[in-house]
């Protein structure tokens, strides 16, 4: 298995999710060798659920299984006392000049981009999604060297191509967003432990006590209630497209809902080792279970959009599965909350 492919100094890291990957690779480049994708995800309190009200994406419901874009990098760096520089631009030329300056200095930087014009992505994946992240780590023959965390290997983009994706338009427009760690102080084991604990606590808060009924564990129930009504309200065809959208939000590269539950399980396993606390690794099992249940629900939803399952009772079953998932995740976070991991 080849996850790291070596370049001059910067090491490409392939990960399950782009922002985790950028965070992990940039921090490792700056000497934080202990950083892993699960650790970045957990310290950044990446696990979430939200069905954003009144918003549709690609003509379907807007559902996210993760926290908002940018938060994982920001929180993980903050909890390790890493100073971060981030910039947005109104002018593409200024954005390119700033990037070129950094490339000249030999500093790898994270960039937020839209995927619609991302030339190295297969066409089938190019929808207007503007919160993808990649790293620019050099220049060769007039092309930027790109480390995209969802790709197995490094790739490259021309100046025009990169400028275009950095200035993609629409919801979450990146506006040339560029970010990188600036100053890194020595990191102690104690800081890592504190970062883990505060990451868990913030995630407990986000999932259990966020106000409103469309986010956190209650958000899963919110969607479940919608699923029950979709067949009557939208007709079978549109309802099955909506389910397909849930599965894509849940499982496609860079979004992964079921996958995120496994990732959180992996984080708790690592956290248990840092904290020397077996109780934490026991809760890890609950997230493995939740991940498996999300995948089972995706299989059921696939039955609908493949046209094999068409009855209202199939929609009811999917909705019930989501309620069960909600319970498992709710109990898991309640367990984490009751562990009193200290500060």
């Amino acid at each position, binding site marked *: *298995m080849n*996850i790291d492919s070596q370049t001059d100094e910067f090491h490409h890291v*392939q*990960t*399950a999710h782009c922002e985790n990957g950028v965070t992990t690779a940039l921090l490792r480049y700056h000497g934080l060798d202990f950083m892993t*994708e*699960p650790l970045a995800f957990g310290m950044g309190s990446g696990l979430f659920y939200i069905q954003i009200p009144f918003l*549709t994406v*690609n*003509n379907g419901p807007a559902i996210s299984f993760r926290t908002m874009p940018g938060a994982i990098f920001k929180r993980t760096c903050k909890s390790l006392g890493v100073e971060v520089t981030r910039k947005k631009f109104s002018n593409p030329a200024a954005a390119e000049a700033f990037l070129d300056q950094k490339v000249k200095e030999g500093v790898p930087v994270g960039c937020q981009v839209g995927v*619609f014009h991302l030339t*190295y*992505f*297969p066409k*089938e*994946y*190019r*929808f*207007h999604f503007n919160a993808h992240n990649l790293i620019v780590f050099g220049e060769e023959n007039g092309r930027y060297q790109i480390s995209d965390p*969802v*790709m*197995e*290997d490094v790739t490259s983009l021309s100046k025009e191509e990169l400028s275009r994706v950095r200035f993609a*338009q*629409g*919801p979450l*427009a990146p506006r040339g967003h560029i970010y990188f760690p600036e100053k890194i102080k020595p990191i102690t084991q104690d800081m890592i432990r504190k970062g883990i604990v505060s990451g868990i606590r913030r995630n407990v808060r986000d999932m259990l006590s966020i106000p409103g009924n469309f986010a956190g564990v209650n958000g899963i129930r919110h969607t479940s209630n919608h699923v029950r009504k979709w067949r009557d309200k939208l007709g079978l065809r549109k309802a*099955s*497209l909506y389910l*397909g*959208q849930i*599965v*894509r939000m849940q*499982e*496609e*590269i860079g979004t992964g809902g079921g*996958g995120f539950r*496994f*990732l959180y*399980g*992996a984080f708790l*396993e690592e956290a248990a080792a840092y904290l020397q606390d077996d109780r934490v690794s026991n809760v*890890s099992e609950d997230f*493995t279970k939740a*991940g*498996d249940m999300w*995948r089972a629900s*995706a*299989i059921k*939803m*696939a039955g609908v*959009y*493949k046209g094999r399952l068409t009855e209202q009772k199939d929609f009811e079953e999917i909705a019930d599965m989501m309620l069960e998932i909600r319970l498992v995740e709710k109990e898991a976070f309640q367990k984490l909350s009751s562990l009193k991991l200290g500060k």
Partner: protein
Amino acid sequence: MKKEDLPQDPGALAKFTREVCYVKNDDGKYETALSEGWDVKKQALDSAWEDVNERVEEARKAVANGEKSPVYYFMELRLMDLSVLSGYTGIFPFFIKRHFKPSVFKGLSERKLEKYARAFDITVSELTNFKG
């Protein structure tokens, strides 16, 4: 998910990359493994594209029948919605909706047509000469 259960169904990504997944190994510990894809996802993506293609075809017919302007067709063709198209052109959604009307579209200034053409990655004449 156990490592041996990780699906390896080649999909749209097959020629480009494999995906990292977190799976349980024989010792019950998490590790990463690479997946070629999963049929459940592949079909979700396929059905999304079927929907896109149908929308584009309906938009084409609407232009041919004189119900909608080419702006509407190219918006669908480029997978955009009002907010995305508004972002690329700087034209407010309310006005874009008006430009969907063939009668309003006819009177559009060269400057507005250029904005649309640039957003759609086509020339102005490709835009104005599209008949469905």
